[in-house]
């Protein structure tokens, strides 16, 4: 009895704080009283070598680190930025100065206070210098001023749209302690594998390739939270083994579609599990088909369009993806707030049109009905390779002979991105909430060779370069959205790369877990309010 009283009180306190911060849907609190205690064991496929999100950003790393290390802001239920380590923010009229008010009374796990000096250090020494995407996002960052311990003023040489910074900050602005890193070799600091943060869980142990074990942080800044005693993240790269672990109850969760698709479909019918895309909306992946426009055939937009028309994506999504995916409409997915319906209609399946376009481009069917032959290189993942096979079979019907050449990931990068030694290449693009973060770089010219996930297609359009450049410094949110609508339209018409399918990641969760998947990028958040049934 006594235990449940304490539980109720702590839940009220925790709930009140969070409602003020606007971080968590209140409905989930209204129904059930969270239970304190318990161990949550989850599976991830990625075997990570560093646990420092301030220097290495990826959705895989955030699963591990977001419980220990917190960002300035995170994504709220409706895709809006909500306070974490920053409580308020403001941009100057010229967009070159952005001021963050930082949360007071926050302690690092080693007991030292969190201050603006930590933010300054991370921004200048880690985000700007080492972090993937961070080096691009903060390329015009000149200084971070710290007028007091709880104010950080970011100064940019060019205007920085506040919306862009805040959305990107959810994934790119994680703060680690300055006193641990200052004056050390940042890449080799031992805290990269044994993090010290401000989050609801403290580091216990990490065995690469095996597991990360986290303990409850009793001094977390939200009173009463977290509810769980322990979180264990197990690395299980083999999809079938992960499914077996979930079914035999040795884990309670699996993220990022890392189970075999047939098992996902089967578990969806099992009463013991919840299976779905909820809580993953911010993790939208686009399957891409890139065209090397330096090659003669592919320099003709009609050939590129013909290839797009020849792919029956709806059929593929239903039969191969078992319904977890749909035909994309341009480079900005329909889950995004930047999506403008109708701006980029995409290419519906139409074999006749494909044939007509190829004929018109001057590539008549020759001996054996073949118009021309080319190579297709898929990046390494089962999903991408399956799509490559589908492309091969589809294009055969319109007389294009495809030779699939498969490499592992470094081999793919060397061939496609560094040496541009490809005709067709299929990969994925993770949409990062704002097209300015990870989408436009696939289309703008002047990206150096060897940069993975960028414009490696030899394609250059002044129109699109202009729109991208203007949108990056446009401060009015409505105008930015219109500009990205224009961007999507040009990208759709010219297709240097076909964004073919959009897929939202699927999670499978044992029903004993509560308050999970309640924000759009839930696997990569702190899980402070998550609890588990006794």
């Amino acid at each position, binding site marked *: 009895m006594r235990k449940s009283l304490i539980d109720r009180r702590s839940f009220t306190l925790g709930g009140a704080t969070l409602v003020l911060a606007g971080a968590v849907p209140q409905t989930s609190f209204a129904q059930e009283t969270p239970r304190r205690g318990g*161990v949550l*064991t989850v599976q991830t496929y*990625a*075997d990570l*070598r*560093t646990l420092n999100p301030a220097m*290495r*950003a*990826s*959705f*895989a790393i955030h699963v591990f680190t977001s419980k220990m290390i917190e960002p300035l802001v995170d994504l709220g239920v409706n895709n809006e930025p909500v306070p974490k380590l920053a409580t308020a923010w403001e941009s100057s009229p010229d967009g070159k100065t952005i001021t963050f008010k930082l949360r007071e009374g926050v302690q690092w796990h080693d007991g030292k206070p969190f201050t603006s000096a930590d933010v300054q250090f991370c921004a200048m020494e880690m985000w700007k*210098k*080492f972090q*993937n*995407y961070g*080096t*691009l996002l903060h390329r015009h960052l000149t200084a971070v001023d710290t007028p007091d311990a709880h104010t950080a003023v970011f100064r940019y040489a060019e205007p920085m749209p506040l919306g862009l910074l805040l959305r990107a900050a959810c994934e790119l602005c994680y703060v680690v302690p300055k006193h641990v890193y200052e004056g050390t070799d940042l*890449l*080799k600091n031992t805290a*990269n*594998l044994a993090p010290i943060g401000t989050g609801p869980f403290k580091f216990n142990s990490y*065995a*690469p*390739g*095996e*597991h990360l*074990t986290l303990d409850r942080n009793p001094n977390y800044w939200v009173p009463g939270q977290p509810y769980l005693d*322990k979180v*264990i993240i*197990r*690395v*299980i*790269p*083999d999809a*079938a*083994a992960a499914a*077996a*672990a979930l*079914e*035999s109850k*040795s884990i309670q969760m699996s993220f990022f579609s890392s189970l075999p698709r047939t098992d996902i479909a089967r578990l969806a019918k099992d009463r013991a599990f919840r299976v779905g895309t909820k809580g993953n909306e911010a993790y939208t992946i686009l399957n891409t088909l890139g065209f090397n426009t330096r090659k003669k055939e592919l320099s003709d937009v009609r050939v590129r369009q013909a290839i797009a028309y020849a792919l029956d994506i709806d059929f593929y999504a239903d039969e191969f993806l078992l319904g977890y995916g749909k035909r994309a409409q341009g480079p900005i997915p329909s889950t995004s707030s930047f999506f403008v319906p109708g701006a980029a209609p995409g290419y519906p399946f139409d074999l006749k049109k494909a044939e007509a376009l190829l004929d018109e481009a001057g590539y008549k069917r020759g001996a054996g009905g073949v118009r021309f032959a080319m190579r297709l290189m898929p990046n390494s993942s089962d999903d991408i390779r399956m799509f490559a096979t589908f492309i091969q079979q589809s294009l055969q019907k319109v007389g294009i002979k495809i030779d699939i050449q498969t*490499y*592992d*990931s*470094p*081999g*793919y*990068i*060397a*061939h496609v991105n*560094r040496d541009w030694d490809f005709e067709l290449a299929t990969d994925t693009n*993770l949409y990062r909430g704002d097209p300015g973060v*990870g989408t436009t770089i696939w289309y703008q010219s002047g990206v*150096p*060779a*060897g*940069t*993975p*996930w*960028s414009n490696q297609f030899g394609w250059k359009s002044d129109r699109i370069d202009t729109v991208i450049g203007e949108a990056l410094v446009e401060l009015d949110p409505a105008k930015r959205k219109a500009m990205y609508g224009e961007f999507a339209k040009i990208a759709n018409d010219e297709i240097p790369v076909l964004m073919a399918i959009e897929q939202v990641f699927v999670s499978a969760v044992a029903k004993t877990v509560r308050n999970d998947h309640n924000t759009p990028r839930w696997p990569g958040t702190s899980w402070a309010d998550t609890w588990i049934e006794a």
Partner: protein
Amino acid sequence: MRILRLALRRLAVSLPCMLIILLGLFLLLQLAPGDAIDALMGQMGSSDTALAETLRQQYGLGGGVATRLAVYLFNLLRLDLGFSVAYNQPVLTVILQRLPVTLLLMVSALSFAFAAGMVVGVLAARRVNRWPDTLISMLVLIFYATPSFWIGLMGILIFAVKLNWLPSGGISDLSAGFTGLRLVLDTAVHLILPTMTLALIYFAIYVRITRASMLEVMTLDFIRTARAKGLKEGAVLVRHALRNALLPMVTILGLQAGAMLGGAVVVESVFTLPGLGRLAHEAVIQRDLNMLLGIVFMSSLLVIAINFIVDLVYARIDPRIEANG
């Protein structure tokens, strides 16, 4: 003294061999497209080229092939296996973390395969061409022909998912937080399925070999002599026949120690055991040259050590063989 001399001689023979392996691997990996930084970038999901260049410098991946090879071999002389780019830790640290699991798996699988294979093989030889022999031979053929990953997955499906008797993977139950004897017990339970999966194919080999060599030995003159002097059948079998039949089995044991390291990759992946096999697989994908060379170095040490022990065991089993090389 004699053992020490034998050990030194063995090492002297093995050293050039090891050098050739390391050299070959080093050059072979230069042919693979992309390097460790490319792999790292792939894992990050983005990057810019300036960052890649910074990282290349930081990890000492610049410079020509010859320079890097020379630096590597020089460091190896000082028993420094280098720094792993992918794991961001010294190679030796990572390998020593993973080695116990693989050793445990190998030793338990080899012991099971050897012991059970011997018993069942003798049984088959005793009842040769009668129904127990036929049954055993048939089963053994099935075990030998079935791929181990399939056996592993079926084992998980039956014993972990359906019956819930055994854990589906991992080396211990992390959420229970056992210590001491409970932890040992827990680890043993976790090792049952992987051990069986890895051992079955070797078990099959041992049964075949024991059966064949027992049958051969049983026809020799000294067995007739032993029987003639009135020894019981059991004593003839164990003290005279088996002891002689053991020699080819022990030889195979030494040879298989190396092969088992290869088989461990599959078993470690299916059962998510953090061992050397999986580490090697990852190292190839990550183009982590230092790590891969380190693993090969350690594995060859392991195989040399096991074969050395096998040589010593020879001398124990058959005093006619002197431990002189």
